[in-house]
């Protein structure tokens, strides 16, 4: 079975497991787990942030970022398609108790002009919702791994600062953007008050995310982490896997990207498929297809798992376990399914 549903399906390698088994541990609930502390210190250095907090998941990291930079009823400005809204609007409402002011940007890039429009979209008396935070994402999951252009990030950050807003960067796949653009992780981090990165996606660790920012904000996040049940004991074994991933696996993301382009290239050769090759910027390939459920079922029967994004949109996510041979097989399966059912599927890029 070729599993292209997500880069979260990656399993820890033997080397990573061997590394985990040796990890020194302590009680992270008291800040005493040596492996967790080493990972946090490493990330502080790598991203040049004052403080870092290792948490169970990207969802928790983003929740804590919102909780520690807003008060209940405050407003967060973001693009409708970013994960913090697209998947997480209910918990952000319940747990962070913030109001989302979401903007439908034409290309997924939330620029200063959109934030300006969002700010102007309602009256701003003192006793109404106060805009506090802008939340960005890089690479953008909802836009099939699109990279947020660095110049736009800078512009957003500067605009936010002029307007007294904080900036959070959901960097679940920031490593993917970084290997593609060559812009350093610390440069990206310098244009965000807080950022989260995930070790459990393309990097291949079983678990965990890091939230980073100023000491003051991360200290607040530490307290909220207890509320959410994120205080854990010997987290060092998980942290060791994340440390292994971040010290060994970043560069290989480039290979995932090349394979994604290779898959897109092969799909282009199928006359029935039209897709935008230039939109494949990192490790995802997205195709539009009528009857997407049937299409996916038929692919699965032939040994290929794809992910249903929204009805009519299917995506393939490339990760560490996928070989060039898998990509060729995947393309062949898609070709078979389409050509056997020509009239049933209509593709558009």
């Amino acid at each position: 079975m070729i599993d292209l549903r997500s880069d979260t399906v990656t399993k820890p390698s033997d080397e990573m497991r061997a590394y985990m088994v040796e990890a020194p541990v302590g009680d992270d609930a008291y800040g005493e787990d040596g492996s967790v502390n080493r990972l946090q210190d490493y990330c502080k250095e790598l991203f040049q942030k004052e403080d870092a907090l290792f948490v169970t998941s990207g969802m928790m990291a983003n929740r804590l970022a919102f909780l520690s930079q807003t008060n209940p009823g405050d407003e967060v400005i973001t693009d409708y398609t970013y994960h913090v809204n697209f998947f997480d609007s209910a918990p952000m409402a319940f747990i962070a108790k913030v109001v989302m002011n979401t903007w439908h940007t034409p290309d997924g890039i939330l620029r200063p002009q959109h934030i300006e429009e969002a700010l102007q979209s309602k009256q701003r008396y003192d006793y109404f919702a106060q805009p506090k935070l802008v939340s960005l994402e890089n690479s953008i999951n909802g836009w099939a791994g699109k990279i947020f252009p660095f110049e736009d990030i800078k512009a957003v950050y500067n605009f936010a600062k002029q307007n007294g807003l904080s900036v959070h960067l959901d960097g679940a796949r920031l490593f993917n953007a970084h290997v593609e653009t060559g812009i350093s992780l610390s440069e990206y981090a310098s244009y965000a008050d807080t950022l989260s990165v995930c070790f459990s996606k393309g990097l291949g660790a079983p678990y965990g995310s890091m939230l980073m920012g100023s000491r003051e904000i991360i200290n607040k996040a530490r307290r909220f982490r207890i509320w959410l049940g994120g205080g854990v004991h010997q987290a060092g074994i998980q942290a060791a896997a994340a440390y292994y991933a971040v010290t060994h696996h970043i560069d290989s993301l480039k290979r995932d990207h090349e394979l994604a382009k290779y898959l897109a290239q092969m799909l282009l050769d199928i006359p029935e498929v039209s897709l935008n090759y230039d939109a494949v910027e990192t490790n995802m390939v997205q195709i539009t297809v009528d009857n997407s459920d049937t299409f996916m079922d038929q692919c699965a029967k032939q040994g290929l798992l794809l992910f249903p994004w929204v009805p009519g949109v299917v995506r393939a996510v490339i990760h560490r376990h996928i070989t060039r041979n898998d990509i060729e097989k995947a393309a062949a399966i898609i070709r078979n399914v389409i050509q056997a059912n020509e009239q049933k599927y209509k593709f558009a890029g």
Partner: protein
Amino acid sequence: MKKYKIDLFSDTNTNPSPEMRRVMCEAEVGNEVAGEDPTVNKLLEKVCELLGKEAAVFLPSGTMCNGIAYRVLCKRPGDLIILDRTAHPVTKSSGLISGLAQAQPYLIKGDRGIFTTKQIESIITAPRGYNVSYPRVVSIEQTTNFGGGAIWPLETIEEVCSLAHSHEVATHMDGARLFNAVVETGITAAQYAKTFDSIWIDFSKSLGAPMGAVLAGSNSFIDEAWYYKFQQGGGLHQAGILAAACLYGLDHNIQKIPQFHDHAKRLAEHLSELSYTIVDLSTVETNVIIFETNHPSYSAFDIARCLAEKSIRVLAIDKNHLRMMTHLDLTEEDIEEIISVMREIGEHEIRKKAVG
């Protein structure tokens, strides 16, 4: 890489054994949030069987189990959760009850963390109305942590749960140390669990796993729990590595609990012989020792500091009380060393007084 040579601060600070690490290393894994991690699934099946419950969900911590269970069982903001005033969700979980579950704790002054139907009858049976908060959950802790590791008698549990259920109040067990009660009384986990709508067990305490807990209940309860698991960031990917440690703990470490219960009893006996302690030996039922100190010039905080200087950590609960918890990693020699240092702390000060 432990900070202290002997750590009696809590039973959470145990080092996973080499064997446990090996099964973790070899664990078969899949994507937990998609329900596809085979080792997690195996653990859940086993826990359902142990507790006699329909369904279960894996979570990173016991605190997350409490938070999620309360959110599922409470219906409206302001609902009441009835618990002992020493319960962990009240004393050690920050703003969990109000901040996360949007509920109010209704505190009972139990006896070492254990309360009776008599103490909760008035609130459970109080007339409902638009102007009052509804009692929604009775939450108990087995064993009681800050109650000193006391075991809730099965009979008391059954009475409390029966009263709650007859007034449509749900029942929840924080079973962080349920197995400590099980090995001591011989009553099975399923018998203890039977009258609870929601129950969780923890693997990071007496079972020696690095982290992880399982929340169990009916199918519909667990289905709703999954919604909040996502909300709170408890959805994990290859969690099988952790679940493997939890399974190992269930299979190999329950049988080791009696040994450190004995350690607790012996340690308590020695402590009771010191000049500056008041230890009620009858309260040492499991692995927790809470006792009073009346040192001529040291508060409990001072004593804890003196012990820390000798690389022994204990918890000072207040200026007159210390807590010590025994666990898997503790040896006979450790107990002797603690006692010898405790003796020194008494004598050293008296000598100093005689000189000064």
